[in-house]
């Protein structure tokens, strides 16, 4: 039973990580690519880490997994902010839809 839960969570996490990669390729510019990359950093890593929990034996390793998850939840916004601010300070402009002008 715990194996099944684990597999579902891991597959779901893997699917979201794949989605993040495809999103990074599909979206038009630097700023919009930050958003799908964010899904890989948050939900995908969370699902994979939680999916690994039932598979490991000792509680010490479990605590480490949870710690890594929490650490990533704190550090990824910080690094995302750092690179996006660097791009903004460099004067990179965001992509705009060309066909129809929308506010």
């Amino acid at each position, binding site marked *: 039973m715990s194996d099944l839960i684990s597999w579902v969570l891991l597959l779901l996490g893997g699917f979201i990580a794949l989605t993040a990669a495809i999103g990074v390729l599909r979206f038009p510019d630097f700023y919009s690519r*930050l958003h799908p990359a964010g899904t890989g950093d948050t939900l995908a890593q969370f699902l994979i880490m939680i999916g690994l929990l039932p598979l490991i034996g*000792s509680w010490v390793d479990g605590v480490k997994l949870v*710690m890594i998850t929490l650490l990533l939840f704190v550090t990824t916004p910080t690094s995302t902010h750092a690179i*996006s601010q660097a791009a903004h300070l460099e004067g990179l402009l965001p992509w705009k839809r060309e066909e129809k002008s929308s506010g």
Partner: protein
Amino acid sequence: MRALFLFLALCAFWVLLSGEIQSAYLMGVGVFCCAITTWFSVRLEIVGDEGQPTRGIRPFIAYLPWLFWQVVLANVDVIKRVWRPERSIEPRFFTLPVQVRHPVAKALYANSITLTPGTVAIQCDDSSFLVHALTDEAEQALRSGDMEQRIQQMEEVSV
């Protein structure tokens, strides 16, 4: 007092990560490392209200499940837009007025915005954030001020 608390927290963290309480060597080295770290922190003057905002810890824990649910919802939205055949995104910059003042609350707000896919806090000034949003819905969700209200409640408790 705060230094002592930091020392004890570091020791607890060490035991949690090493998982060995039998080995006298590991425990001895652990206490030594925690003492050194605490001493450095005191010398660097990072032991204080900003580094350890202990008073707001209970509302913060209450905030986490809500934030997590928002992150899940935003994730689902971005994932849908990635798989949709036509481009369904309207990326834009906008300036978000910010009412929270406490530096820890502002950092938490900016981090929450960035953690939620669909919005990224780019530039943080005194009274506003420059935010990049992927869609109009994401922009409106932030403008509604729901997230900020929750952080403001936390700020009121802790200041």
